[in-house]
């Protein structure tokens, strides 16, 4: 019997399996093992976490294949890696390495100031960032099989993630109240394909899994995003820039599962040591705001 790889169902289905889970940024084998032991559903292999990319500046690119392969060899959970926005050759390389998901990420320096990667050309699935529903639907139209709200990576400030989740959720709710003959203008206004706008209006949700990312630093942050309707969370700098990464990682995993149980959240929030120091998004110069990358 014939088998089909890389179908939309297989790509989107992979994200379905990650739901209710935490995906953690890791920069080496040791961190990847801590993440797996803490109950992460996947790791994002990268050379510098967003907080360090921010601090060190310069052009941020795809990670060294050696480093990605070492992490792949060290853990049994899925391994994701980041390609620059529009850098389809980095994506080809990552696909050839057999990573499980590519994040076309604004955390890296964009390679194309107009176009994103044509993700339909790949067998491997992609996750892309979005700040609003129009952006999410443009990415899905290009073949993204999973969306994450962007937040402001590397800050430990959850306010932008909150803004983006409210925006995506609010626009979905608004679409479902419109008359069918108003959806054409809605599609025009949000610069998104009509067919996807219509689908969201009918189903009341995105056609792919929606995670949250950017600025999540505590179990309470993770639970906040889950209560806002996220299917799961990415935690980047928040874990390994904190005082006790293993404890914080495990606590965030538990908080994501029991996001609606304040008693559990109180228990897992105890004695975690220092959270990452963080940067207020409002203090960031506009040029350093990563969420504004992507078109």
């Amino acid at each position, binding site marked *: 019997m014939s088998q089909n790889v890389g179908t939309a*169902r297989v790509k989107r289905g992979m994200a379905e399996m990650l739901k*209710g889970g935490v995906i953690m940024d890791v920069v080496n084998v040791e961190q990847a093992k801590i993440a797996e032991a803490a*109950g992460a559903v996947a790791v994002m292999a990268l050379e510098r976490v967003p907080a360090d990319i921010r601090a060190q500046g310069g052009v941020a690119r795809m990670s060294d294949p050696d480093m990605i392969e070492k992490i792949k060899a060290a853990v*049994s959970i899925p391994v994701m890696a980041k390609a620059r926005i529009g850098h389809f050759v980095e994506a080809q390389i990552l696909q050839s390495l*057999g990573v499980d998901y590519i994040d076309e990420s604004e955390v890296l320096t964009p390679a194309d100031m107009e176009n994103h990667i044509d993700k339909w050309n790949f067998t491997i699935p992609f996750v892309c960032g979005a700040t609003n529903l129009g952006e999410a639907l443009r990415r899905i139209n290009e073949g993204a099989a999973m969306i994450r709200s962007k937040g402001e990576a590397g800050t430990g400030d959850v306010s932008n993630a909150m803004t983006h989740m409210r925006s995506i959720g609010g626009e979905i709710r608004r679409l479902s109240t419109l008359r069918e003959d108003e959806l054409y203008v809605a599609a025009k206004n949000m610069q998104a394909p009509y067919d996807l706008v219509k689908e969201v209006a009918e189903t009341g949700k995105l056609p792919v899994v929606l995670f949250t990312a950017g600025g999540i630093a505590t179990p309470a942050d993770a639970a906040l995003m889950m209560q806002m309707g996220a299917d799961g969370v990415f935690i980047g700098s928040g874990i390994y820039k904190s005082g006790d990464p293993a404890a914080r990682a495990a606590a965030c995993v538990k908080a994501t599962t029991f996001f609606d149980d304040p008693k559990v959240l109180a228990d897992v929030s105890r004695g975690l040591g220092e959270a990452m120091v963080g940067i207020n998004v409002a203090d960031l110069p506009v040029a350093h705001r990563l969420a504004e990358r992507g078109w």
Partner: protein
Amino acid sequence: MRVGVLALQGDFREHLFALEECGVSASLIRRPSELAAVDALVLPGGESTAIANLARSFDLFDPLKARISAGMPVYGSCAGMILLADRVLDAAVGQETFGGLDITVRRNAFGSQVDSFETDLDFAGITNPPVRAVFIRAPWVESVGPSVEVFATFEHAVAVRQGALLATSFHPELTGDNRIHRFFIESVARPALEKAAVK
């Protein structure tokens, strides 16, 4: 019949919808008290390491293992199959399973996500049309004990049953085809529960 879906992590909502469409009373399970209130259980797709960890942390691991040993009907898809297996190859360090199924599974046996696929599959008793099976970083069954029946094969065994336990490497909950859930309820769980009631 009250059927629970273990809801610690993974695509438990898809299983919940499938069960509801089959007309049974279905609920999500995250606590021992919730487990105690159901007659049968579904273990969803997800990450088997994360699910086992969470079950351990929230005092579900041992009660669940005990219920399985005591004959509770359980269906597991993908990660759920791994969690039901007595033996796991390519496991994470220290990875535990609930066990109960006398099988050896190999995790991520078909490869990484670029090798994930869908295909038509003949599943014992469900043939017209064949089951559209979605395999996502799926395990396969490397070997089975004497009392395990193999229901479907793709390169290796990918659907097995032993008494009240059913497991598939693939994800019927992703296709909107509820025949395998229906098979679990009508042909696996209901007979097992009726037999237990007579005793």
